[in-house]
């Protein structure tokens, strides 16, 4: 019994590995200097879907919303085993909060059509909100199982899942279709297969094809005559499509999305203010790693009643 599955992923700045290069002189983080990566727990979500396909058959579609450069994450998904991908990318989608993001993703899933299972990572490392999964389940009116760590059984009607709760776990049985958010503990994502890397490293979105050809035609500004650009780009795009290497890009009209509910316009929350955390050196006492110095430190703390 094959299952139709969609995995929602996000390309994120690597906030876990902030190197000196990504720090501004004033001690704040230069966000644009961070490398873009596949959100770690989204890899676990993808792995869970691929494992279902391996065991039961089916199809895994990977969808992301982001700038044109997010196509890189979709290439990665193809290299790891996804059957097809789609990129939601348009100015109208930009600066979306979690509600507007969930709305747009819901529209994309409706375009894909029937599904049995949706998978998201538990949360993304840039926002750490864990909200888009449940909000997407809400938008599509399907049940959700958050913090999923293992699929224990799967039938065409229902899924049995182990999910992590505070201090333990639950085993729940949930009717299909359903949405799962997957924790990092769930599995070890499979590596990219050499054969698929060779095959899909050439996968491109139409945006990427046009961008590259525009640079060839007009190396200085990248803005050649639109007719010439189309004449050169269209055959390349058609060729990629024939080879199954085209990463489709969807705008609001392609997924029947109401632009008033997308992006900044569709976001109830607004960022009022952002303050960068500044790492300022405080005066700290240097303690030598000797027996005497450490004994003196412990004595000092005891005098201050720290251990009472």
């Amino acid at each position, binding site marked *: 019994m094959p299952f139709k599955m969609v995995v929602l992923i996000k390309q994120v700045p690597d*906030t*876990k590995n*902030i190197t000196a290069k990504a720090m501004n002189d004033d001690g*704040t*983080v230069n*966000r644009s200097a961070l490398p873009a990566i596949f959100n770690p727990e989204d890899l676990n979500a993808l792995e869970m879907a691929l494992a279902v396909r391996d065991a039961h058959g089916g199809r895994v579609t990977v969808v992301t919303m982001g700038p044109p450069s997010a196509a890189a994450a979709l290439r990665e998904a193809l290299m790891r085993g996804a059957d097809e991908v789609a990129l939601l990318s348009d100015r109208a989608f930009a600066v979306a*909060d*979690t*509600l507007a993001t969930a709305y747009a993703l819901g529209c994309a899933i409706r375009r894909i059509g029937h599904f049995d299972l949706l998978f998201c990572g538990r949360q993304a*490392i*840039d*926002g*750490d909100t*864990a*909200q*888009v*999964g*449940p*909000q997407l389940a*809400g938008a599509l009116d399907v*049940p*959700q199982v*958050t*913090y999923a760590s293992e699929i224990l059984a799967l039938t065409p009607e229902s899924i*049995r899942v182990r999910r992590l709760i*505070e*201090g*333990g*776990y*639950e*085993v*729940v*049985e949930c*009717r299909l279709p359903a949405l799962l958010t997957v924790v*990092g503990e769930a599995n070890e994502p499979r590596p990219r297969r050499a054969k698929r890397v060779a095959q899909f490293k050439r996968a491109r979105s139409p945006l990427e094809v046009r961008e590259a050809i525009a640079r060839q035609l007009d190396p200085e500004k990248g803005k050649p005559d639109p007719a010439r650009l189309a004449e050169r780009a269209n055959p390349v795009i058609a060729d990629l499509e024939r080879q199954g290497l085209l990463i489709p890009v969807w705008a609001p009209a392609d997924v029947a999305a109401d632009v008033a509910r997308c992006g900044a316009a569709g976001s*109830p*929350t*607004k*960022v*009022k*203010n*952002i*303050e960068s*955390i500044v*790492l*300022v050196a*405080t005066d*700290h*006492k*240097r*303690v*030598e*790693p000797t*027996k005497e110095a*450490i*004994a003196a430190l*412990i004595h000092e*703390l005891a005098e201050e009643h*720290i*251990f009472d």
Partner: protein
Amino acid sequence: MPDRTGGVLVFAEQDGGKLAEVSLELLSKGRELADALDQHLGAILLGSRLTDQPRHLIACGCDVVHVADDPRLAVYTTLPYARIVSDVIAAAKPEVVIFGASPTGRDLAPRVAARLRTGLTADCTNLQIGDHTDPVRKTEYKKLLYQIRPAFGGNIIATIVTPEHRPQMATVREGVMRLPRPDPARHGAIVPVPVKLDGEADAVRIIERVKAERKVNLKGAKVIVAGGAGVGSPEGFELVRELAHTLGGEVGASRAAVDAGFIARDHQVGQTGTTVRPKLYIAAGISGSVQHRAGMAESGQIIAINTDPDAPIFAFAHYGIVGDLFDVIPKMIEAYKSK
């Protein structure tokens, strides 16, 4: 804007009849917000065979407690809870609704926000009432909820507002608000909520539930000895444990140590872990990422042990020991035992 006089509403989370600490913490903050808005503070409590919990919520600062008591609500499941909470919000029309950022709160709140199509900010570390002017349209808003949270791995602190949509919703981290002191003499209203469900209880069935009492009490610990990537292995954490045990403290860990599998996640301190304020925090082999700092910077005294003299942890430690933790910690244990 529609007339909203329903005040501030706190989702009072309970498990097996025991109210979650984070919900009680939210009541002291909620009281403050309600007073700033000059409105009342409500709580919504769902469960089965509830007894004195509503009265305790009133003692902790509530003016009104909405109680849904039904066998189908005995254990938390998303859809029935989301339905009842949404229905109460639709009827009570609160300005502000807050949830604890517990696994349950983070499962429920987004589902409710999606249903009500309103804004929700996750994992706030502070909430305030203040005015706001839209930077583009120059529209002025009075007395909005400032939803303050770290983002971007803890590298920034963002203040979020929900100008046009109601209610304004947020989840709030555990441990960042103080617990209220209950006053049994306080008066308040207990309002029963009719439990109407249309098949919501049929979607998910709980087959098994294994839940241990929280063994790691980082929040209440006076001393925390935390290990990071520098500890190197699960076995290395034995030494961290020994020092914590000697000092009568708890064992903490950085995200790096947890992600590497050296120690269980309930030990994690930091933006995505627990926020702590012990009298003494000893950071061993922790480089001191901003996300870790967000969870422990308010500790009374911070001792950093690291082989790298340039580790960021030294920038906010009170005492810095440049050295190998496997050399330093035994000396600390010895010094404490002979003090």
